[in-house]
């Protein structure tokens, strides 16, 4: 078990000074929804605003020059973080926008690999977050293509037993999550991508729950596009990333139209700048990009390997602890093989919302509900679950508090 120095890390996150209900300390187990921000990130944003604020790529003055350098510098940081070329990084407002950008771009054209027609198939999975499901449902609706999906095993892993029939020459897009935000299971992207590429399908990976938690390298992942959000990886809200292979970005139609994404404009028509500019219309979320750059620097200074090891240790400890509780059922793998630090569970006779409410009295922040994965809830026959998710600022004592909190919850509702 290899743990980080959590006390030192926490000192960088001002929110841990906050007093929760009943003067409890904050036991934050909801990083799967959004993470907290170290002051390094807040300072980077503030410095942007107080020293370099200007519209990027648009002025000949010093501030515009500095703002552009800061914004493009952030793009470089992101590109190194995932092993990509700098021009392959598109800044969006969120992973949700990144995935919608892709889906719209597909129906904004009728040429080449991006054109879909009736009979074509888009393959997703039953464990997708709504953000990697509904955009594809709607793309299917717009183009007449058919949506198909991988199921989930009872253990909470992707059911790849039918992969040979699911991936066929009809398959044009495979959109799959890297790690489930409910089950914690990590999907075998490489194997799926290899298969998808033999039939010429494009592979889209929702990296929202992976990019923040372990090292990710697009040069070996074998995906064609990946999407993730800054706010789940110590970055500000309002910033997301879409990475795509340069050759594909060059062929893609834009999504948002407006300033800075053009080559030339007349009243009747317009032509586009090269990627990534083509996909970044308007004055961008500059300060947020800079904040994300600072967040990545922070993560990398600690090391993604170490963060991953830390989370594996926490997950191990939590899985053992939770399994000692009577009337508690875990959804998702019970070991840490191909599994991240997200644990969903149900308590007999206690609705997740009620559990969350009692835990809140002890300063414990968990998430309750369907976690934007409603089809997965139906598969497991529940309306929702309670989810604890871990990050670099959590330690074993947080898990002890959770386990005591669950006992208190059962006592409060006279179950057990």
């Amino acid at each position, binding site marked *: 078990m290899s743990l980080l120095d959590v006390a030192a890390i926490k000192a960088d996150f001002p929110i841990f000074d906050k007093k929760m209900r009943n003067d409890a300390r904050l036991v934050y187990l909801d990083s799967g929804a959004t993470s907290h921000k170290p002051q390094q990130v807040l300072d980077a944003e503030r410095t942007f605003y107080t020293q370099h604020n200007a519209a990027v790529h648009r002025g000949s003055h010093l501030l515009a020059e500095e703002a552009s350098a800061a914004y493009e510098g952030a793009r470089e940081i992101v590109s190194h973080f995932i092993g990509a070329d700098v021009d392959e990084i598109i800044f969006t407002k969120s992973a949700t926008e990144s995935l919608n950008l892709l889906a719209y771009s597909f129906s904004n054209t009728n040429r080449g690999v991006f054109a879909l027609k009736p009979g074509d198939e888009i393959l997703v999975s039953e464990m997708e977050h709504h953000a990697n499901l509904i955009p594809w449902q709607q793309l299917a609706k717009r183009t007449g293509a058919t949506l198909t999906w991988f199921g989930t095993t009872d253990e909470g892993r992707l059911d790849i037993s039918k992969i040979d029939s699911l991936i066929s020459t009809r398959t044009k897009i495979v959109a799959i999550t890297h790690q489930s935000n409910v089950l914690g299971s990590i999907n075998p992207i490489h194997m799926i991508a290899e298969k998808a590429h033999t039939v010429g399908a494009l592979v889209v990976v929702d990296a929202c729950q992976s990019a923040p938690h372990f090292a990710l390298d697009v040069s070996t992942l074998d995906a064609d596009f990946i999407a993730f959000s800054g706010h789940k990886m110590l970055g500000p809200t309002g910033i997301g990333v879409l990475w795509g292979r340069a050759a594909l970005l060059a062929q893609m139609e834009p999504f948002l139209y407006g300033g800075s994404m053009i080559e030339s404009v007349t009243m009747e028509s317009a032509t586009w700048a090269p990627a990534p500019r083509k996909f970044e219309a308007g004055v961008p979320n500059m300060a947020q990009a800079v904040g994300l750059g600072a967040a990545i620097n922070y993560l990398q200074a600690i090391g993604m390997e170490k963060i991953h090891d830390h989370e594996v240790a926490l997950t191990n400890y939590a899985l053992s602890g939770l399994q000692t509780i009577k009337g508690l059922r875990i959804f998702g793998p019970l070991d840490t093989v191909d599994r991240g630090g997200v644990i969903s569970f149900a308590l007999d006779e206690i609705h997740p*919302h009620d559990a969350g409410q009692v835990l809140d009295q002890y300063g414990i922040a968990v998430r309750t*509900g369907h976690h934007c994965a409603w089809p997965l809830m139906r598969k497991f026959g529940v309306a929702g679950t309670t989810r604890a998710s871990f990050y670099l600022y959590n330690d074993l004592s947080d898990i002890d508090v959770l386990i005591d909190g669950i006992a208190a919850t059962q006592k409060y509702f006279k179950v057990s």
Partner: protein
Amino acid sequence: MELDSLYQEVILDHYKHPLHKGLSTEKTVQVHHVNPSCGDEITLNILLQDGVVSDVTWDGVGCSISQASVSMMSDLVHGKSLDEAFVIVDSFSELMSSKGSLQGDESLLEDAVALAGVSKFPARVKCALLGWMAFKDAAIQGRDGEKI
């Protein structure tokens, strides 16, 4: 503990032993409502006779607040005229949006005044309202249907 203002004993009683749960076969209107943020769902039947709510039954999944609340509501409006029922529903809605400033009119709301504490927990207000909004929807449809 602050929590006790939310989970009063009578709420937990209704939760464990909900009234009017189980859908009737006879009905004037059936509605289905969901709470999109937590996934809770309710199906509710009402039977109207001469402007009177002669039966209310429901089924669904939800937290203690939502289940207790729909149990209390169905018992309250059962046998009331539509006009009386609307007054009760409006009074309850007002209580829920009071942010803890109202106690609730016990003569009108009976057991449901126990839910007054919910109004201090903004995230739970919609749990408490789920069944009531379903009833209101059904009642309006029923009334408009009768008029035709």
